[in-house]
């Protein structure tokens, strides 16, 4: 997706399409285990956070994952690749209900619903691992839309076994 200039020059429809494609490329990168590309979906000052509704509803800051910079994201990927021990597993992201929110010259807010299944590569049936909503702010860049901030709010406050991959 080439540079797209001022967002407010684009029709709602065009933004919807580009936001959808961004979201879908983002999910594909995780589901196809191309984690090294994950940080590239964020702006240079982009941030990522995964929290539970239990904490969010109480305005408590505890999180399951928080990367304040793409660097922290890359550090996590290195750790997952070289340090951490976990069963080989696949995420499958079902992301839908992309709802276009506020727009500025350079950003657009969107929300989505998601469901992520986790399937263990050995002896695994797919489990509904996490469900909830995301609140993202997208920004235009020369590569097209990128995440300025992504916040995932899970309905389920429980994590089974461990949390390996981002959502």
């Amino acid at each position, binding site marked *: 997706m080439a540079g797209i200039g001022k967002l407010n020059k684009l029709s709602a429809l065009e933004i919807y399409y580009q936001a959808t494609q961004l979201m879908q490329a983002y999910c594909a990168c995780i589901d196809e285990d191309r984690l090294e590309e994950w940080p590239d979906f964020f702006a240079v000052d982009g941030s990522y956070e995964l929290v539970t509704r*239990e904490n969010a509803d109480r305005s408590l800051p505890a999180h399951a994952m928080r990367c304040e910079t793409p660097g922290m994201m890359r550090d996590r990927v290195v750790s997952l690749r070289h340090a951490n021990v976990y069963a080989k597993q696949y995420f499958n992201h079902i992301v839908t209900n992309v709802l276009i929110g506020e727009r500025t010259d350079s950003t657009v807010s969107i929300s989505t619903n998601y469901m992520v299944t986790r399937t263990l590569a050995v002896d695994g049936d797919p489990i509904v691992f996490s469900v909830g909503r995301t609140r993202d702010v997208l920004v235009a860049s020369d590569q097209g839309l990128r995440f300025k901030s992504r916040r995932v709010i899970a309905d389920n406050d429980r994590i089974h076994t461990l949390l390996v991959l981002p959502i």
Partner: protein
Amino acid sequence: MNAPMKPEIDQGQINWPASEEMQVPYQVFTDPRIFDQEQEQIFRGPHWSFVGLEAEIPEPKDFKSTYLGDTPVVVTRDREGVVRAWVNRCAHRGAMVCRDRRGKADAFTCVYHQWSYDAQGNLTGVPFRRGVNGQGGMPASFDMKALKLPPLRVAIYRGLIFATFAAEGEVESIEDYLGADVCGMLDRLFSRPVELLGDERQVMHGNWKLYSENTRDAYHGSLLHLFHATFGLYRSTQKGGCKMDQQGRHSLLTATKGEETKDKSATKGLRTYQEGQFALEDPSLLAGTPDFDDGISLVILAIFPNLVVQQIANSLAVRHIHPRSVKEMELVWTYFGYKDDSPAARESRLKQMNLVGPGGLISMEDGEAVELVQQAIARDGDATSYIAMGGRKGEAQDNLVNEAPIVSYWDYYKRAMHISSTES
């Protein structure tokens, strides 16, 4: 006790070798009848179980619902500010009375027939107790005082709330129960007023005692968790040690930043002890100012039967073990800081949440380890583990390459469960 629900395990049915090393029969992780007995003899026996932090219910009328063993209980703070606890089961027909995880109330009304109770669990209201127009209602024999939400005894140490089913005198005071070393560490960690940062919940598909072993296991730290090694951050041949209470049921593991061993022979060939191949791109993750000036950078304090208190760098948390069945447990992490944290200090704690918990870069492996054992032993209740690192006898150690706290844990477990070794 209700025989069919919780059948006694008779001695002949557990085959626990009286060997030089500690050999734990895997049956204790897989037999539902043993799980039932643990509920009676451990969680409802002469022990203090963790049920929460005072900071979770700071004001009068605050309450939280939780579990003691697998029994649903509620912890309340009454109008006078006294902390109370009771079993969450209505005296009428057994419905769960408190249906919220936390909240504010000084009366608890069961939704089924609106029997109501005060914060102490006393029955205070029964609709239509006297019937209507002289019809229906309770018989003469009805005694409000005889019916209540089964009360638990409560003890508080440094803001940690413990509860027990045991009557006065059946269990020692909380100070004696914890012992001097444990109290000392709690004094250290809870010297400043705490502020809650939030909870994480992790389901492990393994027996709760596998996690008890894991948190008393200094041996696995540097071998299973490779984050530091990978990023060249430290060698866990660093100074450290472990202490147990007199009964051997609690465990206090500590590590101190400092001198490394020169004993290269000990670490030869271990992946952990290769030079770190990587460097953090964003080192702010670990940039925190120590909270204590004693140089202790790691504390894993495991308090029998269901609590772990952690200090990992600047990350502070209590971990509450909820055994859900013989092969599943839930671990509730409650993170906290200090009320007087500077913004920078608070920021460090939040950043370092990336290191611990179910998705923690340092610790995510523990849930995996627990499950790897549960999966492998399923068919082999009569096989045993082999626990001898650091020698058989469970004595305090000045190193982090031993299993002494695990040995003493099992010795105590056998006493608590009245299991004796079988001669071999």
